[in-house]
């Protein structure tokens, strides 16, 4: 169901500013946390079961506990606000409307990790949000929540906002660190992990915006209470950003107990597909995760109702499932062309490859070229197998996950929509003027009951 924890106050006018935010219970978690020991806070986050909201879903408390603490070496917390995964715009919403929630989460997390200088690395295009965050930092500092000796505890903390300059790869944590050091965004070989040698070779934790904001309710209600929200290992709430062919695109907060069908068709959320069209396919977690045809999206291969949570979306592995990913929910209606859409994503990954690893640098270019040929009527039947072969050779063979992220959408499109690729090749002229349509998917295409 719809459960608002992060966005509870998002509708209040003026919540962007300190006075209103504070009046509505803001900064309580800092008051509470600074009376606890840093280890106790890490313990609460562990108990909450919070998983990284950037895409990988790694348990946050565990990530925090890996942070090395050598004597005399400063540590840093870095907030990853380089939101660049196509389909994802939830962090933007959070920062734009509730900047103080992020600042509050950052102060508590900085205290827990011992970071006296914390950096928010925000994608360069979010220029106006940089101003909003800097305004919030100034207000927080003027009210004693940042700076020296916060609340008389002896804890010092400064938060700085750093703008990137247009590079998807900088969302990968080691590339982000390189960029923050004033270099090209080339990911580092791991190990060493950032928790041991990160920013300026100091121990560093990099967390997503939504993850750090979620620390606020975790401290306020306690880790155990937070863990009761949701289901299984999908605890708490998740922000989803919905785009593509739906009646109500936007950002939604859910508690991960609803079905995908309800999410798409209920008026509380996406409100169905515009103009009475049918659902063809969906990428449920940002452009990198496998696309699913309507039948496999709404029900798992075992015939169970697919739910909006980490486990259920991944049910069936990549053969018949997908991933929660970053929560970027992209919906395609029956008039959309899978080949064209996949080509667009391939161009994106080709553009964003940093160029360090040959499989990704060359492979993404090849995938884009082959897809362009098929889309524009110059494809050969052997191209489909070639495409499959290229993506297989990228996956797992690169320093960072961008290679995988580029390979998966292509693999899933061929896996589930091979006949549409074949149709393009067999009907090069017709493919320029009309869509493949739903004829071949007619049986599994769902008629909504919600």
């Amino acid at each position, binding site marked *: 169901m719809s459960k608002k924890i992060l966005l509870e106050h998002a509708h209040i006018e003026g919540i962007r500013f300190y006075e209103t935010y504070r009046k509505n219970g803001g900064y309580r978690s800092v008051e509470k946390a600074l009376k606890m020991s840093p280890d106790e806070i890490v313990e609460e986050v562990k108990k909450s079961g919070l998983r990284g909201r950037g895409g990988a879903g790694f348990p946050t408390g565990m990530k925090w506990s890996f942070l090395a603490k050598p004597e005399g070496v*400063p540590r840093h917390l870095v907030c990853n606000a380089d*939101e*660049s*995964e*196509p*389909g*994802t*715009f939830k962090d*933007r919403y959070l920062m734009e409307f509730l900047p103080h929630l992020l600042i509050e989460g950052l102060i508590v997390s900085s205290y827990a990790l011992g970071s006296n*200088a914390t*950096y928010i690395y925000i*994608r*360069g*295009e*979010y*220029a*106006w949000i940089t101003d909003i965050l800097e305004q919030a930092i100034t207000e927080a500092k003027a009210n004693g929540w940042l700076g020296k000796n916060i609340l008389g505890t002896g804890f010092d903390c*400064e938060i*700085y906002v*750093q*703008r*990137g*300059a*247009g*590079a*998807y790869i900088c969302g990968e944590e080691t590339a982000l660190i390189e*960029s*923050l*050091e*004033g*270099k*090209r*965004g080339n990911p580092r070989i791991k190990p060493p992990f950032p928790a041991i040698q990160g920013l*300026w070779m100091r121990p560093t934790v990099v967390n997503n915006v939504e993850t750090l904001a979620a620390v606020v309710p975790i401290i306020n209600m306690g880790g155990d209470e937070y863990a009761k929200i949701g289901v299984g290992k999908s605890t708490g709430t998740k922000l989803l*950003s*919905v*785009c*593509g*062919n739906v009646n109500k*695109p*936007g*950002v939604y907060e859910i508690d991960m107990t609803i079905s995908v069908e309800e999410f798409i068709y209920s008026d509380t959320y996406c409100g169905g597909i515009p103009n009475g069209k049918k659902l063809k396919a969906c990428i449920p977690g940002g*452009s990198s995760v496998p696309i699913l045809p309507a039948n496999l999206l709404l029900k798992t291969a075992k015939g169970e109702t697919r739910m909006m949570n980490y486990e259920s979306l991944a049910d069936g592995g990549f053969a018949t499932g997908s991933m929660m990913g970053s929560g*970027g929910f*992209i919906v*395609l209606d029956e008039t*959309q062309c899978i080949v*064209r*859409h996949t080509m*667009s*994503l391939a*161009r*994106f990954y080709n*553009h*964003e490859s*940093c160029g360090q690893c040959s499989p990704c640098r060359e492979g993404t270019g090849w995938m884009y070229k082959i897809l362009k040929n098929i889309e524009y009527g110059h494809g050969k039947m052997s191209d489909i197998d070639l495409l499959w072969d290229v993506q297989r050779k990228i996956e797992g063979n690169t320093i960072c996950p961008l290679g995988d992220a580029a390979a998966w959408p292509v693999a899933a499109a061929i896996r589930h929509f091979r006949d549409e690729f074949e149709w393009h090749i067999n009907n090069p002229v017709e493919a320029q003027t009309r869509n493949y349509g739903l004829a071949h998917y007619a049986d599994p295409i769902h008629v909504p009951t919600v």
Partner: protein
Amino acid sequence: MKQFSAEQLNQVQAIIARYPEGKQKSALIPLLHLAQETFGGWLDTDTMDYIASLLTIKPIEVYEVASFYSMFHMKPVGKHVFEVCQTGPCMLNGSDEIIAYIKEKLGIEAGQTTADGLFTLKPVECLGACGYAPMMQLGKHYKEFLTKEKVDQIIEELRTASKN
């Protein structure tokens, strides 16, 4: 010789002070943004050399960074750059048509600038506004839910503003 104003130089010092001593190179991307805004919307070699001197790093360290990030322009651009998103989610909502319309309306191709130096068209990849597609970045802000009418209006307003 390009030079920041005294006020900007204070800003530069404040940015460098965000980082530990000796890590002033971290200020490179913020300074390149400032330089691009100040010196005509793009980065020429003189500008990049100037930034290198401010940070006491080698010019090549600036060139390699400036050329890596897509927001830095390495060639002159028009007064207003239409950075229209063309990635998947925007494409689903008609970004191809918007880009074609802008080309037709301004009589330029992607990457070109109008003869009056006012507009450059630059199709870009995902800007994180997927739910508000199609969209473009114009300076510091986003223009979302674009239609042909909205594009007409934006162009008209900018043309009028440039005459005043």
